[in-house]
């Protein structure tokens, strides 16, 4: 049991910090929802970050650390699935990856080269042509959203591989959520520290301090559970991590918006970048109900 990063992981973290620094502020004139950077994507690709999970001395835990770290940047790209799912399926599959769950719109669908199609209990895979997908520019989610419009050929995955996909989608969701929650809390703490009402910083009011403290306890739990699940690759660990991520985010989203007042409603504060990414993740894999069923099957199997 060791919670410290080893030398290899530290090296990755420091490389990532350097890379991320170039994408850590949104442009002053940005008043939109999905803030995507193709350059970020390209840099990650060129520097081999999408292969971390399949590298001998790195593995999925390094990929989860990277996913969590990058989720704290205002700029995003299709990162989580490429880092944590693709290497488990076939590292040669073309990216970006995206998921269509029961016909609903999904993140990065319009640019995806590989689509995971979840249809009830069945999971298939396809490589859509441009005509099969379309972007949804009016989406409120702070990721580029898209949907499937045609009927591409879908290759069904055997049950074992389908289970692998579910597990790693859950790990990816938890790791990404951990970063988003952290970024949302950091932004709110900053607001509470500088914004004064009744002659003192909002952060001195206990009613708010306690709620923020509770949020940060949840955030730490999500992070540890996500890393543990990435380490073990266990279906039960993944389901617990994803459940805790979605459950905690539901609460954190409300609290951070509430404490940011009207400022949090603007497209200027960037809070929506975190909260409307979290909201996009809340429904994935069946939401909390879906994760619960998985926990029941994996963690209470012997009860």
């Amino acid at each position: 049991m060791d919670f410290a990063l080893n030398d290899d992981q530290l090296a990755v973290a420091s490389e990532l910090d350097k890379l991320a620094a170039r994408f850590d502020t949104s442009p002053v004139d940005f008043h939109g929802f999905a803030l995507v950077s193709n350059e970020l994507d390209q840099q990650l690709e060129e520097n081999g970050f999408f292969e971390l999970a399949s590298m001998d001395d790195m593995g999925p835990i390094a990929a989860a650390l990277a996913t969590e770290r990058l989720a704290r940047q205002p700029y995003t790209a299709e990162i989580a699935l490429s880092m944590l799912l693709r290497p488990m399926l076939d590292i040669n599959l073309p990216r970006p990856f995206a998921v269509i769950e029961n016909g609903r719109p999904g993140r990065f669908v319009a640019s995806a080269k590989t689509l995971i199609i979840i249809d009830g209990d069945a999971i298939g895979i396809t490589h859509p042509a441009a005509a099969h997908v379309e972007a949804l520019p009016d989406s409120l989610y702070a990721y580029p959203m898209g949907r499937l419009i045609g009927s591409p050929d879908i290759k069904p995955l055997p049950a074992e591989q389908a289970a692998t996909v579910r597990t790693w989608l859950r790990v990816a969701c938890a790791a990404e959520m951990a970063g988003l929650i952290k970024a949302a809390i950091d932004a709110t703490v900053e607001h509470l520290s500088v914004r004064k009402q009744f002659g003192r910083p909002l952060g001195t009011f206990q009613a708010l301090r306690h709620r923020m403290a509770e949020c940060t306890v949840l955030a730490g739990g999500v992070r540890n559970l996500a890393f543990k699940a990435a380490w073990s690759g266990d279906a039960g660990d993944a389901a617990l991590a994803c459940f805790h991520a979605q459950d905690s985010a539901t609460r954190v989203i409300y609290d951070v918006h509430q404490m940011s007042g009207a400022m949090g409603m603007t497209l200027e504060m960037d809070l929506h970048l975190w909260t409307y990414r979290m909201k996009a993740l809340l429904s994935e894999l069946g939401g909390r109900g879906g994760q619960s069923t998985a926990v029941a099957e994996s963690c209470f199997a012997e009860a």
Partner: protein
Amino acid sequence: MDFAWNSEQQAFRQSVREFLDNNLPDNWEALAHGPGSEAQTSFSREFCGKLAAAGLLIPHWPAAWGGRDADPWTAFILAEEMWMAGEPRGGQYMNVNWIGPTLMKYGSPDQQQTYIPPMANGQTLWCQGFSEPESGSDLASLRTRADRDGDNYKINGQKIWTSYASDADTCFLLARTSPGKGGISIFLIPMDSAGITVRQIPSIIGEGDIHEVFFDDVTVPETARLGEEGQAWEIIRTVLSLERVGIPRFALASRMLQRAVSLLKKAGRYQHSAIEQSARANAACEAARLYSYSIIDQRSKGIEPGPEASAGRFATVNCERLVSEFVVEHVPEALAGEQPMLLAHHQRGIVAGIASGAAEIQLNLIATELLQLPREPR
């Protein structure tokens, strides 16, 4: 980052489990009900004696005091297994965790010779006289007085919520020798001293757990004082840092959650909201577990845990709450007495946010020290 146990740790856990299998009586679960009951206290004396003989009571103590200098993981694995079994050590867990180590650090040679060997042999019970009727979270406001009387001190005042007081041999007492935070001193007081009256407080948390303790002109020699006059706060900080991780409550909570689900499955009642609530409680138990492990990891590397320890404590409060609520809603027969162990867990679980420091005080610490929010005005 690595979440695996090494082979030594696995073997140690296995040896503790085997010891428990061989030494807990068949009626243990009925006995575990009421952590401070006379039945459990006398069982614990016998049990701790056996633990000591097997080298499993104080492995993390220095060899000079009968231990084998084992690392913090060994102590924590032991604590986890004990708590998961329903804490057959009873109140003696306090001796092992912090009273013994505190005396090793601050006690006079006489105090050490008198008090440490019986702890190492599992033959003595202590109680902790901190809280008072007017001083709970605001412990520094305590009023119990220890007045100089020649070479002695005369102690007057009242303690409350004192666990194990009716069976304890000795009290680790905080009393005031002068005004202010710096005016509190520690006294080690035999509980059969003249002038001490103990009254059990009937409660929802089981027989024999909490008490009032009255001190009327209790006279003790100067040698009963631990450390210097006014040194209590400094010593207490050390004590609390040894206790910072707290009891591994998640271990029993998680086991009882499994048991509750198993009962529901057998009865065909594991469905609807029970499924989601069990997942939520399970995730909270595992979150609390990983927090605790991360703190032990720090300690094993010689880093004194900071505010993350408060976060871990709060995560533990969450997990106890969710498991208790799950049982009440879905296995109501447990509280009606049909499931003694679930009932005992409920009684222990509901105090998680109060005993050994209220949860809201932890939140204050997290806000200031972990989040670095500006402090509340005083």
